[in-house]
């Protein structure tokens, strides 16, 4: 359904009219192949590039190198209307993902209006249908975003994303800005809609517990690359990369009596403008050796599972 082939996205830091030497390697060679109906969870911490990757998958940011293909077609070759019919986003912040100056019906109707070929009557009908599906009362259509709660706004964002019946939805931290009780409502809604409409999700999050619940396939992103990728149960039961292990150990589940473990990652923090030599995780890795400083552990592994570590087995 959706495939990334060696996608890269580098930014050069410009200071005024004279360009500087700083290159930020936000996405540094990502490949994946997601089948229809699946949910690819992408987890990672700040600076790993997952939001940049999300924008690339949406077609909002062209890759510096490599390609993103949807149903075999290169995303870059599609025009904006075709692309909109295939992939839509749901963003993290319900406060900034809706135009404060537009009414809900205009916001949800925008994808339809942008197609240019949908009659006003049909637009209105689709918008109302979608609002009902996401659990919002019909009178919401005339309100402005400021009058809605965070959870309600996120539902509007979902309605907007689905009004064109896309094949793929990219969810970039869709519940991170919501209260826990609202988060559960929204996650349940997303799961229901996926079944009803036959959607494929790319679910970006830093919350591993949520990703474990939602995803069929999980990729762990670090400094621009997928350092591990596996089906969801596999990854959580038998993590192979030290970073994945550290992440899993850091998750604080709501179970009392378990102490907080020392994941031993040290002080330095990842900087995509300064990617370490060899294995990009070696400065923080608790089991790094001299080899890790010089040799990059990249390469396909048997069975299609990615685990970019010299000691992954």
């Amino acid at each position, binding site marked *: 359904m959706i495939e990334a082939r060696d996608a890269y996205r580098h930014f050069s830091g410009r200071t005024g*009219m004279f360009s500087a030497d700083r290159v930020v390697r936000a996405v540094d060679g990502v490949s994946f192949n997601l089948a229809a109906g699946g949910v690819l969870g992408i987890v990672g911490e700040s600076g790993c590039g997952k939001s940049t990757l999300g924008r690339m998958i949406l077609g909002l940011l062209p890759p510096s190198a490599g390609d993103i293909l949807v149903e075999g077609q290169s995303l870059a070759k599609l025009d904006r209307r075709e692309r909109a019919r295939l992939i839509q*986003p749901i963003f993290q912040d319900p406060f*900034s*993902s809706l135009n404060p100056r*537009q009414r809900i019906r205009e916001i949800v109707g925008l994808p339809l209006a*942008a197609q240019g070929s949908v009659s006003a009557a049909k637009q209105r009908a689709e918008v109302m249908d979608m609002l009902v599906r996401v659990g919002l009362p019909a009178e919401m259509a005339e309100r402005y975003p400021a009058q809605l709660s965070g959870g309600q706004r996120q539902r509007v964002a979902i309605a907007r994303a689905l009004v064109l019946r896309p094949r793929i939805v990219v969810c970039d931290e869709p519940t991170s800005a919501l209260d826990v009780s609202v988060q559960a409502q929204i996650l349940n809604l997303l799961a229901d809609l996926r079944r009803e409409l036959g959607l494929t999700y790319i679910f970006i999050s830093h919350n591993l517990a949520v990703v474990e619940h939602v995803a069929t396939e999980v990729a762990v992103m670090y400094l621009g690359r997928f350092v591990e990728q596996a089906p969801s149960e596999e990854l959580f039961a038998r993590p192979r990369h030290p970073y994945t292990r550290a992440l899993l150990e850091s998750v604080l589940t709501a179970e009392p009596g378990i102490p907080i473990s020392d994941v031993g990652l040290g002080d330095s923090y990842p900087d995509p403008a300064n990617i370490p030599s060899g294995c990009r995780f070696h400065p923080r890795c608790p089991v790094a050796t001299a080899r890790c400083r010089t040799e990059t552990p990249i390469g396909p592994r048997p069975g299609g599972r990615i685990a970019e570590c010299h000691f992954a087995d």
Partner: protein
Amino acid sequence: MTARTLSTGLGIAIVGFILFVALAAGWLAPHDPFAQDLMKRMIPPSWMDGGSTEHWLGTDQLGRDYLSRLVYGARISLLIGTLTVVTSGTIGTTLGVVGGYFGGRTDDVVMFAITCRLAIPLILVALTVVALVGSSLTVVVLTLGLLLWERFAVVARTTTMQVRNLDYVAAARAAGASTPHILLKEILPNILTHLVVVATLEMALAILLEAALSFLGLGVPPPLPSWGLMIAEAKDYMFFSPWVIVVPGVALFVLVFGINLLGDGLRDLLGVSQRR
């Protein structure tokens, strides 16, 4: 009632009053502002010795009723203020939004244009234009309109740069919206409040500049009753008949003061509603 609400109310009252006067000039002015009567020159205002209620604010050096000239002068000030702001606002906003949204080379060009504009001395340009084309209301409006756009451009550019990174703009692009739609429907409405505040301040500035230009003989030509021109014509009589210079001076001060109060109030009002 806070001090801010009071001052905004005062601003609205002043500007509203002057606007009313300008619009109703025909009914309010007791005499024809251009009618000269050399027998009745330099009559003082009604509250001074020698004044009468026939000419409430006295007459000027050519015997024209000062109150009428003042009232019609309000029209000129407000007309110039509004037309200038509309012209410069359009130019500045367009440049700023385009530069702010597209970034890269386009933005470099816009920044360069702004820098160039800041380097141009207004008075010299006005001088040159008048020397080439002569002075008239149209010339003043065009000169000011084509030169006073830089603050609009800077504000439009900065706010556009902030807004373009917001998720709803990304969502609009993902929804397949065209670039003109995004600029006009997603970005512009959300920067409008900042631009309105700039507009009120630029209007005050335009009015003052017109007065200055007219004072220098580079603005509105006589016999039009521009307040700046009235001040210029009165400077020779300043010490003997102070009202000829005080009256338009005070009027100018009050108008600009009112516009500034209004601008402050608008900024607070719109700033609050933005944050919600």
